[in-house]
């Protein structure tokens, strides 16, 4: 057995994807000693929510959201953060070959045990789908046998049959003990969450909005070989 800690690489599009979608899972694995690297393709600088009441404008947003993401990473225990400096809303127009190469470089450098990204069809936003597609291509280019997972929103995959998946193709992570960290990360993304009153209710009430599980689609045969309640 190696004494190296397990490693997880997450390749997402915007600051807040990591917290809003799978913050409980990241906090849980970080707490168990997994070394997590997060790549955010953009700084979310074209977002519409500018604080409530608004205190940001288009030109100040990139720095503000970068800082918020750094704070969220601290809340979740994410150790390493990198940006691709692609403009928000333009990931799908970035050169796909170069983008895949950059991600492949990260995969080789980090050499993770598992990779999280967006599903290229069910990503829910053009930037999400584009970064997911590029990450799939990047992993293929490395030729490495690393478990690949696609993140999903809320409880939508509690009954995966509705989306054409079997239970065996889904990893269900129990995050019930990590809602506090997830809530702290939500609040770190202040300019995005000030508009959502529930986030700022007393902790217990706010945390009741979170489900006990986060769900991941197994994206390759390495992931399918693993159990249904763990990413490793």
């Amino acid at each position: 057995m190696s004494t190296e800690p397990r490693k997880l690489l997450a390749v997402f599009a915007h600051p807040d994807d990591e917290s809003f979608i799978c913050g409980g899972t990241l906090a849980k694995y970080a707490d168990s000693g997994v070394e997590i690297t997060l790549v955010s393709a953009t700084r979310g600088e074209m977002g519409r929510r500018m604080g409530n009441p608004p205190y940001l404008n288009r030109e100040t947003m990139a720095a503000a959201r970068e800082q918020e993401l750094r704070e969220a990473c601290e809340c979740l225990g994410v150790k390493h953060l990198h940006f691709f400096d692609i403009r928000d809303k333009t990931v799908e127009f970035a050169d796909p070959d170069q983008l895949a190469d950059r991600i492949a470089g990260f995969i080789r450098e980090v050499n993770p045990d598992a990779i999280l990204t967006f599903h290229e069809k069910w990503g829910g936003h053009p930037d999400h789908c584009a970064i997911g597609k590029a990450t799939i291509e990047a992993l293929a280019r490395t030729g490495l046998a690393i478990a690949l997972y696609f993140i999903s929103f809320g409880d939508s995959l509690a009954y995966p049959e509705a989306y054409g998946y079997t239970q065996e193709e889904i990893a269900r992570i129990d995050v019930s003990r990590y809602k506090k960290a997830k809530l702290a990360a939500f609040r770190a993304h202040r300019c995005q969450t000030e508009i959502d009153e529930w986030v700022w209710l007393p902790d217990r009430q706010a945390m009741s909005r979170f489900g006990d599980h986060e769900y991941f689609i197994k994206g390759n045969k390495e992931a399918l070989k693993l159990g249904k309640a763990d990413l490793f």
Partner: protein
Amino acid sequence: MNQINPLEVEDLLRTFTGEEIYVHSEATSYVFVRNFKMKLTQAFTAGEGPFRIALRFDEIGWLRMEALTHYELDAEGRLLLAGYDDRGRMNVALHLGKEPFAE
């Protein structure tokens, strides 16, 4: 960002007329254009809040926006105008600078 004072905004717009300027303009959910370079010939403001602004450029061009509520002359001398809704979401933006905006 401050609530638009049309007289002050008109004064500020005037400092950009007759010059080659860079514009960032967006209707947030639908379109944005960044670092559009134009020779600004005239600028107009209208309305009693929210405000309308129109730019004449390169002899033949128009850029018109509405729903603007806030403005700021930032530390880099750029005129930033934006329209927010009552919960802090940006609907429109119109930024004028004498140097390109960060790509």
